[in-house]
Structure formats: structure tokens, C-alpha cells
């Protein structure tokens, strides 16, 4: 067997080789320097390699969703499962449904090709626990053939209390519950109906039952030591203010991470909200709410709202490489040792990054200035993406406290086939318009000039260096310039998750 090329080494040879929409290992994203932070060693051990639970892990490790659970038992106003086309990507949408047997085979195929894979989740496209036989059969098969892979599932919580014991029996230690409200008066505007106890419930009754079942399930899980992440969809005018209350309650019931996501509501998706003109939040509204909710509880800002059949690092989707047809032809070579070697390597790399950051943070002078910056990266915690190839930018807030990951912005590739297109450049700039600088591995003359004209400083001096250390080094220099700091306008939030070009 030939040795695997491990993408983390890419930075050494990542100098620009002309433009193209394909190639490379695709995008990733980077976590904040929070690292272990105030997590107990026990929790840290559980989340440190889980891309959806640890900001730091999410640029080193990959996840995959297996779409074995098509049925759902509730209707949400932001969901329409009817369409799947290559131009769209959002939760609840898949290209291919799988049987548990096919899913297990696909997991082995992906694990053999992608050493970063640490986590397999079941997130629909319906609800994992509205399809309990398929979900648990899949877990059983994966556990048998790839015992080092962590299992997780995502649910709306309606059937959760009935399955907590089985979840525990399968050693599933990460469960995500989507909780958009704790008050049925709010819930009736989000959920038109639920199917429960052989009956369709509507309006406030539906929301009340759902909220009660979610709370019961949440408490049952946390009392057994199972980690619970709560996802909430921020719907302006419906639950945006209410989510502060949701945050307080789920925290008090032991949820360990809260992920507030923006509503996706394009009219062409055919959702109730999309068709009725319900808008999603702006990046500033989202960030303000996230900031308001951030107290003792960890708040997640790196979610990419990926599809129920996504494969790869967050922010990338390699599912097209692993269709049922292709998996059937693949020679599966599951090498647990190589996977362990990769994980050990990452562990060391992460320690190095943290040490470098700590050194850099010494000597950061105190000031009230907060600068937002955008970073082009394809993973490994380094500034290693060409400006023109970036399909998303990581956004960091720099202050006397250090560098904090606050979100990501999807953009179209500016550079396709070797030359940029002006229109695309404009939308890229509007996507990061609230940033003072953009960090890239490399950038052409023209976009550089245009960025400068727009007041965004292009920075390529830290190509292939560690992100956070570089940002702090630049920030020190920025403060020392004494040319003053201006807060910039609004950025634009592009909807939907990344799909492979």
C-alpha cells in the first residue's frame, strides 16, 4: 500500500500553481485559540478531535454525515426537503439516501481515504430518531468495522426521551438537539405541526409538546454525562430576542455548547419562510446575539450548516467523491495505524500553534481597539489559501484580549482559470466589507489594488504561517502605526453551506 498524502503537509508546497476551481484538499476553517479553555479535562478529551464541537479541532479533523434517516416527524417553517440540486446546499437536503449497510461501507471507504475523519453523524435528512431502526443499525455496523470513529446524532428532540438508553448503550457521546424556542407562543410561529402519538398536533399544542420533550431529553442526556450541543436557528422577528432565554435555559439544564445559526430562507428553496419573505439575520445581528449569549457557556461560531450527506472538513464537501456508485468500486483499506499517526501529528502541531500564540501574545499592549480581519485558509490553522481560490473567509476579532474566531463568510471563487472577474471581486469585497484587513497566502496585483481602494488592507506577509500568531503580530504593528482605527460598514452573509465546485 502506498503511503497516504496527508493534507496537513500541504503548506510546505502550497505556492501558487495557477488558478483552477479544482484541486487541493478543499477548504477548511480554523478555530479560535480558545483551545481547552475552561473545559474540564474529561470534556476536552471527548471534544478535542470533534470538528463540530471544538473550534480548534475543526480545521484538522473531518466529519461525515450518512443520510440513512429520511423520515421526519415535525414540520419546520424553514425546511423543505423536496429539492436537491447541485446549486443548493443546506441542512435537510441530500443527493442520495443510504441503507445502513451502504452507509457503513461508505464510512469505511471515506475513513480509508481521509485520515482526518474522526466523526460520523446521522443528521437526517429527516430526523435521526424518527428513523430509530435505521439510525441504530448504522451505528451498530460502524462500531463493528471502525471502532475508533466517534458516533454522534442530531435530532429535533421529539422522540429523544424514548431513545436515551439506546444512545447510551451505543456509546454515542455527542448529541445535538435543535431547540428554537422554550415558549410555545414563539414555537407556534416556527412549527406548523408535529406528528406524535399517532396524531398530528398543530399550533401551540404542537410547540408545547415539542418543547417539553426537548427539555426532558436534554436533561436525561446531560444527567448521564452525554455531551449535548444545542442548535438554534435565528429567525429575525420570530425568536431572535427569545434565543437569549433559550440560551439561559439550555445552559441551566447542562447543554455544553450553543450553536446559533442564521436562518436560510431563499424563496427558491420553497420553504414557508422563503415563500413568505421572512428574512435571515445580517452578520452583525447574528454576532450581536451570539455576543449577548456568550457567558460561561461555550458558543459555537464555526458551524457551516452542512448537508445531511456532507463529507470532509467543515466548509468543504467531498460527498461527490463518495457516491454509492464510486464507493462500490473502491478498494477499501482501513488502516487504523495510519489514522492514529495522523492524529498524533495533529496533536503536536496544535501544541506548537498554541505555544507560538502564547509567545506572540506577550507584549500585546492594552487598548480599546477592536479590529475585524478576514483570513483565507484551507485548513491546518495556517494562512494557506490564495485570495482568488478562497470560497470562504474566516473572520477574527482582534483586541487586547487576543484573536477570537467570530464567524465565516462564503464567497464565490474570485479566480477561475487564471484571471479574476470584476463582478465576483465586488461580491467578495462586499462579503468582507466589515474587515480592516484580509490575510492571504498570495494575491494578484489587481485585486490587491481594489481591496486597498475599498479600505481593506491585503496582507500576504504571513503566507503559510499559523493564523492566530500572525494576526496578533500584525495587530501589534497596526496599533503601533498610530494612523488611527476606523470601524467599517456591514458585511454580507451569503447563505447556505459550501458545496464542492
Amino acid at each position: 500500500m502506498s503511503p497516504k498524502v496527508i493534507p496537513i503537509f500541504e503548506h510546505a508546497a502550497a505556492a501558487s500553481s495557477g488558478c483552477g476551481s479544482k484541486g487541493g484538499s478543499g477548504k477548511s476553517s480554523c478555530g479560535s485559540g480558545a483551545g481547552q479553555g475552561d473545559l474540564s479535562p474529561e470534556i476536552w478529551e471527548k471534544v478535542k478531535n470533534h470538528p463540530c464541537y471544538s473550534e480548534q479541532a475543526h480545521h484538522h479533523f473531518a466529519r461525515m454525515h450518512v443520510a440513512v434517516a429520511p423520515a421526519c416527524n415535525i414540520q419546520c417553517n424553514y425546511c423543505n426537503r423536496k429539492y436537491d440540486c447541485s446549486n443548493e446546499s443546506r441542512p435537510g437536503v441530500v443527493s442520495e439516501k443510504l441503507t445502513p449497510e451502504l452507509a457503513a461501507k461508505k464510512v469505511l471507504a471515506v475513513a480509508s481515504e481521509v485520515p482526518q475523519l474522526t466523526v460520523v453523524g446521522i443528521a437526517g435528512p429527516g430526523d435521526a430518531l424518527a428513523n430509530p431502526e435505521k439510525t441504530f443499525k448504522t451505528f451498530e455496523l460502524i462500531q463493528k468495522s471502525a471502532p475508533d470513529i466517534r458516533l454522534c446524532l442530531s435530532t429535533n428532540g421529539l422522540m429523544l426521551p424514548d431513545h436515551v438508553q439506546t444512545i447510551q448503550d451505543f456509546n454515542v457521546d455527542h448529541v445535538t438537539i435543535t431547540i428554537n424556542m422554550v415558549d410555545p407562543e414563539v414555537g407556534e410561529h416556527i412549527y406548523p405541526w408535529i406528528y406524535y402519538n399517532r396524531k398530528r398536533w398543530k399550533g401551540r399544542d404542537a410547540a408545547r409538546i415539542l418543547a417539553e420533550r426537548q427539555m426532558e431529553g436534554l436533561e436525561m442526556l446531560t444527567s448521564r454525562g452525554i455531551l449535548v450541543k444545542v442548535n438554534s436557528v435565528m429567525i429575525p422577528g420570530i425568536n431572535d430576542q427569545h434565543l437569549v432565554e433559550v440560551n439561559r435555559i439550555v445552559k441551566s439544564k447542562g447543554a455544553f455548547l450553543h450553536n446559533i445559526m442564521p436562518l436560510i430562507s431563499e424563496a427558491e428553496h420553497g420553504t414557508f419562510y422563503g415563500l413568505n419573505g421572512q428574512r435571515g439575520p445580517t452578520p452583525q445581528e447574528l454576532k450581536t446575539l451570539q455576543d449577548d449569549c456568550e457567558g460561561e457557556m461555550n458558543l459555537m461560531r464555526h458551524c457551516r450548516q452542512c448537508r445531511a450527506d456532507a463529507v470532509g472538513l467543515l466548509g468543504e464537501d467531498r460527498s461527490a467523491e463518495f457516491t454509492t456508485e464510486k464507493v462500490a468500486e473502491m478498494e477499501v483499506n482501513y488502516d487504523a495505524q495510519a489514522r492514529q499517526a495522523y492524529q498524533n501529528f495533529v496533536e503536536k502541531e496544535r501544541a506548537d500553534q498554541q505555544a507560538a500564540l502564547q509567545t506572540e501574545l506577550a507584549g500585546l499592549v492594552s487598548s480599546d481597539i477592536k479590529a475585524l480581519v478576514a483570513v483565507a485558509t484551507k485548513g491546518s490553522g495556517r494562512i494557506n489559501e490564495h485570495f482568488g481560490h478562497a470560497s470562504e473567509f474566516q473572520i477574527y476579532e482582534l483586541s487586547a484580549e487576543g484573536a477570537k474566531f467570530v464567524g465565516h463568510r462564503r464567497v464565490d471563487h474570485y479566480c477561475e482559470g487564471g484571471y479574476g472577474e470584476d463582478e465576483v471581486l465586488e461580491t467578495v469585497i462586499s462579503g468582507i466589507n466589515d474587515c480592516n484587513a484580509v490575510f492571504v497566502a498570495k494575491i494578484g496585483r489587481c485585486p490587491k489594488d481594489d481591496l486597498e481602494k475599498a479600505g481593506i488592507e491585503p496582507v500576504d506577509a504571513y503566507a503559510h504561517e499559523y493564523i492566530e500568531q500572525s494576526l496578533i503580530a500584525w495587530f501589534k504593528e497596526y496599533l503601533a502605526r498610530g494612523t488611527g482605527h476606523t470601524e467599517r460598514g456591514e458585511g454580507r452573509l451569503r447563505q447556505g453551506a459550501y458545496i464542492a465546485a
Partner: protein
Amino acid sequence: MPYKIIASTCTACTACEPVCPNVAIKAKNGTYVIDPKKCTECEGEDPQCVEVCPVDGCVVVDKSVPRYVM
């Protein structure tokens, strides 16, 4: 008049199959069909396939078949 599934709007989400008390629903050619001989219209309770189906108007009464009689 048993129920029938309008294939063109069915998303094949599988939700109806397990909730049918009469085991009348089966997958067929990428969609689902109700066996009119087995469908009892869930007499005495709400028709389960209609209750669980996420697509409005996908499961409807099939007027071409006579009503179910006990």
C-alpha cells in the same frame, strides 16, 4: 375509498411506511404506493399516512376505488 399517494409530489421520505397500521404501504419505483385492498382509511382514528406526510396534498382519497367496508 382508500388513500393513494400522488407519486409526482412524493419525496420518498419513508415516513408513511412504518406508521401504517395495516402494512399497506410499500416502496415501488422510487416512490411509495398504498395497497387499496389493505387500506382501511384508519377507521376510528386519523389516517396515519396523511398525518405524517410532509407534503400537503400528497396523500389523498382515491375516488376511483370503492369505500372501505368493515
